[in-house]
């Protein structure tokens, strides 16, 4: 087969299970798929994460998934997939190695892949080539929503520096002051005073503002800055963006369809949230390999934007912490 390596992704995973499992190859327990408005998602649930290879053919009409070292074992039949992006999945033997080939339609666009944990999954998102580009233009500012955690009767934790609700508000205001110097950024706060908000109200405020980035700010009793992103269940039903009418998906759903969709918005932003989380984690730690922490966050799942939660430790206060967070946000916006 005359195939050129148009795209090679070698994911050298740093999971504890992955290190030892590398030589054993990849054992795939199940393969799932979901069709969304803007992309199709193929999920390989593996016994233990290990490096894999993803190759796109020169004509762009197929993707080949295989193990980097060791065998690629399929313990499950491949599902029937046929939509406007993916024409089917096939198990093949190429050069004495087992691979899975994803046959693509001509409308298939950009391919993104990433890894989720617990259980370990390789997720491949194939965008529709005709999907509209993000509506970010120079004359329309990028909306960034900052969410100071807790508030009102919910004081959060008490640290040596004070109550969490106060610390998060102070930090959010300091970040806003820094970001507002850039005319291309519009900063919205979910609260700018001591006020109680539910998690759904915070997510709804972000969606209503048309946020491209959402940063929830919290405090910790230990040191350092920790970045969380949503640990997504790759369940079907995730819906990507607000409707073309400009309406946002409110949590006080007006229709049965909206009720079903609330809480699934973040699934469509896994890649962007991962990139934002990685940018901030590396900005804070100064280490190229730093990764955000995946966690099941009740707040972020309903946010229709690239979203992270930051936990600022007892040693992170005032201008230095605000400066580091603002710089990470600015760099992400410029590069994405």
């Amino acid at each position, binding site marked *: 087969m005359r195939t050129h390596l148009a795209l090679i992704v070698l994911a050298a995973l740093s999971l504890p299970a992955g290190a030892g499992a590398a030589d054993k190859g990849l054992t795939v327990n199940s393969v799932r798929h979901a069709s969304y408005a803007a992309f199709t998602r193929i999920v390989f649930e593996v016994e233990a994460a290990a490096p894999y290879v993803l190759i796109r053919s020169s004509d762009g009409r197929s993707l080949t998934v295989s193990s980097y070292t060791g065998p690629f074992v399929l313990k499950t039949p491949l599902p029937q997939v046929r939509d406007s992006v993916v024409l089917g999945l096939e198990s093949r033997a190429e050069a004495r190695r087992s691979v899975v080939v994803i046959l693509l339609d001509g409308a298939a666009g950009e391919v993104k892949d990433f890894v989720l944990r617990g259980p370990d999954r390789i997720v491949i998102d194939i965008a529709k080539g005709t999907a509209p580009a993000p509506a970010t233009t120079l004359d329309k500012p990028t909306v960034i929503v900052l969410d100071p955690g807790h508030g009102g009767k919910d004081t959060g*934790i008490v640290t040596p520096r004070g109550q969490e609700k106060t610390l998060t508000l102070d930090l959010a205001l300091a970040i806003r002051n820094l970001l507002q110097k850039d005319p291309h950024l519009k900063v919205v706060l979910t609260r700018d005073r001591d006020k109680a908000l539910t998690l759904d109200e915070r997510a709804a405020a972000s969606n209503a503002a048309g946020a491209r980035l959402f940063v929830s700010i919290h405090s910790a009793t230990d040191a350092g800055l920790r970045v969380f992103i949503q640990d997504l269940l790759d369940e079907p039903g995730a819906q990507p963006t607000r409707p073309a009418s400009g309406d946002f998906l409110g949590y006080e759903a007006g229709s049965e369809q909206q009720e079903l969709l609330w809480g699934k918005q973040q699934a469509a932003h896994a890649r962007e949230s991962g990139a934002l989380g990685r940018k901030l984690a590396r900005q804070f730690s100064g280490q190229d390999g730093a990764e955000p922490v995946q966690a099941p966050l009740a707040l972020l799942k309903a946010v229709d934007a690239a979203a992270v939660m930051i936990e600022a430790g007892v040693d992170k206060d005032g201008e230095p912490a605000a400066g580091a967070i603002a710089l990470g946000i600015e760099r992400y916006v410029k590069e994405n």
Partner: protein
Amino acid sequence: MQSDRLLLGVVIILTTLVASGGIMLWMRMPSTDTAPQPAREEQQPAHQQSLLDEPLLITLYYPHEGMLAEGSATVQRQPDTQSLARASLAALFADQRAAPEPVLRDIRLRELYLDNSGTAYIDLMPGAQKDVRASAREEQLAIYAMVNTLLQNFEEIKQVVLLLDGREAQTLAGHMDLSRTFTKRMDLVK
């Protein structure tokens, strides 16, 4: 005369062989005596009881310095997995390394149920302090201390659902989503 002696010898040998074979066969036949054997039956429950009395060593996971640490504890053996899982979680809450940690110190184990699909339902309730105050990381580690302890010790348990006062709850301390099922996260263990 000589041939008669030879014949007699062969007959004696054959008779001996047949007789000894018969005796051996009789000895190997199962006994048809169906009378109860009280001595043996009395010993079996005593043996089982001694097994139940033996403590069982389990693996515990507890928050420690921003990660989960692995330790061991002993629990009383129980007649079924659900009871043993409940005892294991109770051991976690009572453990000196886990009990003082945020979230774990503020909640109590109300009940644990295990269904046929392998889902364990951990029903929690607030302690004396009604509000559970913890950072997102502390809440995450407390949840996975419970989840990892169950899933690492019991292969029958495939996933965990967390309840508060017998009902579904949004979070324990304001951060982690309890509306989902949990599976173990060994990447949180140092």
